[in-house]
């Protein structure tokens, strides 16, 4: 398709999209109205299980099975990326030296923020049921904190502090833990992903039943996933080089070889 034809098609499609959206929006309740039937039901269910953070209650208690699916999507994406970013033929891994100059102020900030970020991440995961936050958010904070070392110019330290096999197992363990908690709900409670642990008092650290446990499982998975993803991309940028033997190949040699194969 030529560029011109594609743009014509795009504008036709956008006009249709705009029309459909305009029709749909006029049928919606106005912005900021007081009509929220799902909210009303969800709040009642949240209070029934003494969970302070309503969003966590919905994600891990009221629709735990959906979140399990979501976690599986993340897991599969990470497996896919890890498969795609392996060193292919005629590539090799080279030793990355911690070269380059890093500003002292950057190093200082990294050294101050590295422990702080790890503590903050643990806090966000642990209090996911009673304050804003939870496993997803805390997991991302934790993996970001680990990668502060790279910002501080310490790639070798990062690779040493980040044994990838541990994170690969941590990711799988998180998914398995999530599924096991769901099955335990089926065995000990009323249904799959039921909240079978006593829920305690609203806003207590140990409240909300299974929600904090799910948060920990998700925190493990998300942190490990982000670490593995970034490790793959960092590897591509820093460590993986095409073999020097292929440097002299004329451009297009790849395609010829593929055609022959």
């Amino acid at each position, binding site marked *: 398709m030529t560029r011109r034809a594609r743009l014509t098609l795009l504008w036709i499609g956008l006009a249709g999209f705009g029309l459909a*959206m305009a029709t749909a929006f006029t049928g919606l309740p106005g912005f900021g109205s007081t009509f929220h039937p799902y909210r009303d039901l969800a709040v009642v269910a949240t209070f029934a299980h003494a969970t302070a953070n309503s969003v966590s209650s919905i994600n891990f208690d009221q629709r735990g099975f959906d979140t399990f699916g979501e976690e599986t999507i993340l897991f599969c994406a990470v497996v896919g990326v890890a498969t795609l970013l392996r060193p292919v033929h005629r590539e090799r891994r080279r030793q990355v030296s911690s070269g380059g100059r890093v500003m002292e102020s950057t190093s200082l900030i990294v050294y101050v923020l590295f422990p702080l970020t790890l503590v903050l991440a643990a806090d966000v995961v642990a209090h996911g049921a009673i304050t*804003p936050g939870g496993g997803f958010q805390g997991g991302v904070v934790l993996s970001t904190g680990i990668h502060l070392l790279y910002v501080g110019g310490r790639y070798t330290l990062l690779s040493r502090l980040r044994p990838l096999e541990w994170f690969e197992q941590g990711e799988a363990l998180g998914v398995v833990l999530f599924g096991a908690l769901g099955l335990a709900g089926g065995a000990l409670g009323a249904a799959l992903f039921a909240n079978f642990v006593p829920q305690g008092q*609203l806003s207590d650290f140990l409240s909300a039943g299974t929600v904090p446990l799910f948060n920990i499982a998700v925190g493990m998975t998300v942190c490990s996933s982000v670490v593995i993803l970034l490790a793959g*991309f960092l590897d591509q940028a820093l460590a993986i080089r095409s073999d020097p033997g292929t440097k002299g190949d004329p451009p297009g040699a790849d395609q010829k070889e593929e055609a022959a194969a």
Partner: protein
Amino acid sequence: MSYYAYVVAAAVMALGLIGMATSRNLVHTVVCLSVAQSSTYILLIAIGFQYGGVAPIFGNQVGQQTPVVDPVVQALTLTDVVVSAAVTSMLLALAIQMAKRRKAVDPDALGRLEG
């Protein structure tokens, strides 16, 4: 005026689509897809908003009768963000493979299907 936030979401979606259709670089295409997807966050959060509503975190000050914004759409947005991150990482990995195998990142240069 009461549909303003919804129109913003539709506009962001349209911008992302235009960017994808006119893209000359696969990484740019992936970023445009993220832009288009972020319009769904705006739409979801806008639908759940209520004037005077507070965040749906309950405690001493916020009781069962306090008006809060809709937590259901917030939970959906969280799901949305995670799926978006998964899709973006997958597509970027594919873009790297394209750059390696075909030595091209312009979508127009990738006309031939490869089996």
